[in-house]
């Protein structure tokens, strides 16, 4: 049995996160994904976090985010601001199944590449347009970066310390939400096409996908007129339910207790301390009312212990508990490793990118028994121009050379340095001083078990 999407060709016009991540899943599922960038505007995810924290050499190939998001894809360049670029893109549409883009809604229309046009070129084409607020409505043209969408969708108002202001995740969180909804939308449209032969246009609003995630709070408003607020790490009924400091620098464990049985197991694991038998902790409601004192007492026990050790001890006793894993601990986590979630990929050792080498990447959040999925390294900039233009479209070397001279295609960005505000590589000690990183490991290659 081939991979689920073998034989499907996807043109990925996305930028940054939402669409490229949605299409990443399709690429890993076996679709042939052709990522389209241009020399004038390489994707911004190429810049900002670079291998060995340097932008020397081929800096556009060493961006961490791009190399994660674009695994299993091919990469070509077409400048769509040029008429020849638009014509070239239309040729590719003729031999493709899916087109995905996350420009603001007016862009594709201005380029003359909106769905109605593409459908005339390829009648059963499936097109996904992902935007902040969707393609219609009074806010359709509003600017939307993931960092601002989490509050707009109502999530931030429900997130934050008790009595503190609303908080954001610190990453473009709604891109994560809408990307997987984008993947789902395309798969549904593909199944519909398989059955009916018809393509369609998908209008995905990042705002609407994100509102899904707070459905029960929305219902509380529509049913009861109640506007829910922030609970920090607490829970409306469980106690204890929170985070506890452990031994070491910025190490934490979370514990949640939902039943009398789990409470007894927790007390057992803590060595049956006298306070656990006090009246104020006698039942769930009493514990919930006195959770601040309870939290302090539990932390007296966790503070001298390793966060992993606390998790294992409590779990063996039957108490839900989890170490608060750092990004480093995620990469080293024995559970994720045993499940094959962490993949090591090796990049080509080309001049100017020798430092990239082999790196670990996060994989797929699901496994398939009959069609196991695997990861392949992200493509180089314009690496597959030859494949797309010569093999798929039958162009000659001369024709391609001419397009290159005219700047329609190419295999390196025009800019000599990263073109993005965050691109400046700040030395790790400065990042630590500013509080952007907790610590750093000189020997992280060794820690991650990488070659050389």
């Amino acid at each position, binding site marked *: 049995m081939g991979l689920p999407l073998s034989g499907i060709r996807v043109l990925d016009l996305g930028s940054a996160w939402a669409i490229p991540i949605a299409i990443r899943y399709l690429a890993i*599922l076996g679709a042939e994904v052709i990522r389209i960038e241009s020399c004038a505007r390489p994707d911004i995810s190429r810049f900002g976090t670079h291998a060995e924290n340097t932008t020397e050499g081929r800096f556009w190939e060493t961006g961490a985010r791009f190399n994660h998001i674009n695994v299993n894809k091919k990469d070509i360049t077409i400048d769509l601001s040029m008429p020849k670029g638009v014509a070239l893109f239309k040729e590719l549409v003729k031999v493709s199944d899916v087109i995905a883009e996350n420009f603001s809604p007016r862009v594709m229309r201005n380029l003359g590449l909106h769905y109605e046009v593409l459908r005339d070129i390829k009648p059963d084409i499936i097109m996904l347009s992902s935007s902040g607020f*969707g393609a219609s409505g009074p806010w359709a043209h509003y600017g939307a*970066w993931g*960092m601002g969408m989490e509050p707009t969708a109502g999530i931030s*108002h429900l997130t934050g310390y008790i009595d503190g202001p609303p908080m954001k995740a610190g*990453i473009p969180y709604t891109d994560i939400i809408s990307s*997987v909804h984008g993947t789902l939308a395309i798969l549904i449209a593909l199944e519909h096409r398989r059955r009916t032969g018809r393509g369609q246009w998908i209008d995905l609003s990042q705002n609407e996908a994100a509102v*899904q995630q707070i459905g029960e709070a929305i219902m509380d408003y529509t049913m009861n007129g109640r506007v829910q607020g922030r609970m920090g790490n607490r829970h409306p009924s469980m106690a204890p339910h929170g985070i506890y400091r452990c031994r070491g620098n910025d190490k934490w464990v979370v514990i949640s207790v939902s039943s009398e049985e789990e409470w007894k197991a927790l007390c057992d694991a803590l060595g049956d301390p006298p306070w656990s038998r006090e009246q104020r902790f006698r039942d769930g409601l009493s514990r919930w009312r006195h959770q601040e004192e309870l939290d302090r007492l539990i932390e007296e026990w966790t503070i001298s212990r390793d966060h992993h050790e606390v998790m294992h001890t409590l779990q063996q006793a039957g108490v839900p508990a989890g170490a608060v*894993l750092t990004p480093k601990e995620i990469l080293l986590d024995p559970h*994720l490793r045993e499940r094959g979630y962490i993949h090591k990929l090796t990049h080509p050792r080309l001049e100017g990118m020798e430092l990239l080498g082999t790196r670990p990447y996060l994989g797929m959040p699901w496994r398939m028994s009959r069609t196991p999925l695997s990861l392949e390294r992200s493509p180089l900039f314009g690496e597959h121009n030859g494949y797309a233009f010569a093999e798929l479209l039958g162009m000659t070397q001369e024709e391609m050379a001419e397009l290159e001279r005219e700047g329609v295609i190419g295999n390196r960005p025009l800019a000599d340095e990263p073109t993005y505000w965050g691109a400046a590589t700040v030395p790790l000690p400065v990042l630590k001083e500013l509080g952007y990183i907790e610590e750093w490991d000189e020997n992280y290659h060794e820690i991650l078990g990488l070659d050389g």
Partner: protein
Amino acid sequence: MADGALSHIKVLDLTHYIAGPYCTRLLADYGAEVIKVEKPGEGDGARRCGPFLHDEPHPEKSGLFLYLNSNKRGITLNLKTETGRRIFKELLREADVLVENFRPGVMASLGLEYEDLHRINPKLVMTSISNFGQSGPYRDYKASEIVLYALGGMMYIMGNYDREPLKHGLSQGQYLAAATAAAATMSAIYAQGEDGPGQHVDVSIMEAVTEGIFWPAVAYSYSGGVPRRRPKVGSVFDACMPTKDGYVAPVFYGYVDWDAFSRFMDCPELADPKFASHADRVMHSEEFAALLLPKIREWSKDELFHAAQDWRFAFGIVNTTEDVVHSPQLRERGFFVEMDHPVAGRLTYPGAPFKLSESPAQARRPAPLLGQHNEEVYGRLGYTGGDLVKLREGGII
């Protein structure tokens, strides 16, 4: 109206709480015929979770349950009995998909492991959603939303510099995993084509959460630095800022025309060259905040949000659930749907997450009452009214 995209797909839904039911609701929204199987008498645990209509705990009035189970039919069946399992296998012969989110091992203990079910129906796609997946050392660990957020890595990167890590509000991880599971299920359905074999899909909620921290993770694997939550210096750039009547969330990401921004905020001091680049602004973030925050406070949140957008600054606005429900954007796009429920009455629900031009999502029916469709579904299998009475007396349905 046109058929839904998935109107040819029959889903047997053994799920409860959030991660399973949101997955099958997504499939149901786009047309799949979903039959939700609940435990007789009790039903899905979500029926006992708030918010309740008028705060009155009642198994047919849970907002969580009503939201996550619309567009499904509902039957009851006791899988702990031999007869229950036999009937379940009859249902399974007709199904294309089975989705379950029991703890790993529960299906096996009922004699309903994938291998057994595959023998009964080789075309079956079975999706299992669990906290940590069907394998690995944490497989049998217990979890709750906060545990998954901690182990999934999202918690460590959220919160203030000098405070403890923080989880997102509500049950974000379980929703993410549910949408992931719906995509995973669809990938297996598409893989089998016209009549290929089904397969078993193993979805881990922890891993769905971990997808959210890919950037901090690759940052470590590319440089050895361990990213953490909001920094000591410059966290104002990621803050929700107070206005007269709520908060806005300015975004200083990508390209910002800084001169225009200082004009827009009526704050010429912001045009000072010391704020010229993002790095400059970070290094002078305290001064920056002292200049900007009083200006932000002069506005109401709605006025500032729309004015900023008119100037093409991609501000976000901190919306409450009330604001979301009354959002003119969501209203105009017909995002919310209304449905009549026999017990809970007419209520407004968030609708489907994306619009398909040829096969749109439809609000076809409200969430089922416990066992509402027993007659219809078992009737199709050939059970008579008399049979059902016996099954009910035997505690099977």
